[in-house]
């Protein structure tokens, strides 16, 4: 299992070099979720709540086995239950453990204007640092998976940390430890991806799921949580997993390119004015 202290790879809204970068090479971590062997037992939900010391909350019945409609600021790990009718009329009950995907190219981090509120470690974990969070919720819109959740009383945003505290100590995330069927595993990205590919192949060859595959969307640079899906061509049916998750173009195009250029152009007005003064001089009241 990958271990070692956490090295930061990217910091939200940070100018200048990243402290300690390059000091230590570290392997990418990855959570493997085999949706095809998940039994939706919610042991991972309990483990998450317990490890992160999250308060109990009253839930209400909502026409589903799902504990609540979506993850919450204090409920980071949620099995999403989806009834899916296949073309041949047969039914599938898809249970997908929803949590932060820890994108390689995290939209939240990209969107975040607060220096250090979101960091990405070299092992791939994207972690929120609430002490730096300014509560602007740009990350909420920046995330293609609808993961960051705002707590209106603390005015901060929270999400799954991939148990960065545990991983930093060389442990697996709490949810992994809890899974009774072994559909959750944790390891290096390479290993988990290989495992997932092998499982997907098994599903294609032996279980009649011709479209079985691994969900590791390249559009966000890959994720550090990967799913084995019965049908990787239609991830939407697993409780709204986007087929092609993209950070909204507003964040990519605008923030990466247009924004700095725009600002430069705007600020160009100052030297123009200055040189106008130098070259044309002031227009004094005449005479």
């Amino acid at each position, binding site marked *: *299992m990958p*271990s*070692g*202290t956490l090295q930061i790879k990217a910091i939200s809204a940070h100018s200048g070099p990243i402290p300690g970068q390059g000091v230590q090479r570290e392997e990418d971590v990855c959570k493997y979720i085999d949706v095809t062997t998940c039994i939706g037992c919610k042991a991972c939900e309990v483990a998450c709540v317990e490890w992160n010391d999250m308060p109990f909350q009253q839930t209400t019945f909502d026409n589903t086995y799902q504990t609540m409609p979506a993850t919450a600021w204090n409920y980071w790990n949620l099995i999403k239950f989806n009834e899916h009718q296949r073309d041949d009329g047969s039914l599938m009950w898809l249970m997908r453990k929803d949590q932060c995907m820890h994108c390689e190219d995290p939209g939240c981090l990209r969107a975040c204007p607060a220096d250090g509120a979101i960091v990405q470690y070299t092992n791939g974990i994207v972690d929120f640092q609430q002490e730096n969070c300014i509560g602007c919720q740009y990350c909420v819109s920046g995330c293609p998976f609808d993961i960051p959740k705002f707590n209106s009383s603390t005015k901060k945003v929270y999400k799954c940390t991939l148990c960065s505290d*545990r991983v930093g*100590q*060389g*442990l*697996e995330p709490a949810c992994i*430890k809890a899974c009774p069927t*072994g559909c959750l*595993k*944790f*390891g290096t990205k390479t290993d988990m991806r290989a495992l997932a590919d092998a499982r997907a192949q098994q599903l294609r060859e032996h279980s009649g799921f011709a479209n079985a595959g691994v969900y590791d969307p390249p559009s966000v640079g890959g994720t550090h949580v990967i799913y084995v899906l019965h049908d990787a061509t239609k991830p939407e049916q697993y409780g709204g997993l986007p087929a092609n998750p993209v950070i909204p173009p507003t964040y990519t195009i605008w923030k990466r390119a247009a924004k700095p250029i725009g600002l430069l152009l705007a600020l160009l007005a100052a030297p123009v004015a200055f040189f106008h003064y130098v070259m044309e001089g002031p227009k004094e009241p005449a005479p």
Partner: protein
Amino acid sequence: MRDSWQKRIDRASELAARDEAVRPLLDAYGRLLVLQRDCYASLHAHSARLSGALERDLATVRACVPRILNEIARTGPPRLAEQARQMIDGGESAIDSMLLMGWRTPSDEHFFAKAVLQSYANCLATDGLHPIDRDLPRADNVCPFCGGAPQVSILHHAADTDGGGRELLCATCLTTWPFRRLLCARCGEEDERQLGYFHSPAYDHLRVDACDTCKHYLKSVDLTRLGRAVPIVDEVAGAPLDLWARERGYEKIELNLLGL
């Protein structure tokens, strides 16, 4: 496996930097680990020459010893330094008999033998050579590879459904073998009321697994609490727990390389 030695060395210096009281001990251990690593490296480089029978491997193993003796003679505590000097004077035969005795009738009280044989046995283990002339009794609580006693116990979580639980780390070859929870690693006591562990918040990932039947203990390194601990080094760093356990009248199953 040279990496694992390096990991131990790095961990020793990391821990030394953190804890003033234990620093001298860890510094000393770190220096020893360097010597052991080099010894391991030279053995590993000549692994083709090794047979697994120490008697036949003496020539190769012996070559490591003078450096260790010289270093201890120079920097070791007075008594060990004195012994090192005597052994240097004793020449090859003294060294050989020391090694063979440590190999065949192991004891945690033979410092030099243990220090050298750790490198040797570990090299055998990594090269897949089974010890031949070390006919020690087999039991659950000794190393299935070399017959050595356990130095430290390790708790870790299942990475998948096929692992997890507790392991013991061999004091000689430094390999691990699975061992049940709630079982005295010395006398096999299973009665939970006789077993128990002592824990201090100062060492969150360490436990003193004690048995009130045989009044022995060994430390456990709980990798489920600190996954990046290096058990054999963290064991040494938990020295205050040893002193505490001894005060309570428990004896350690196997002293570590620092005699604690």
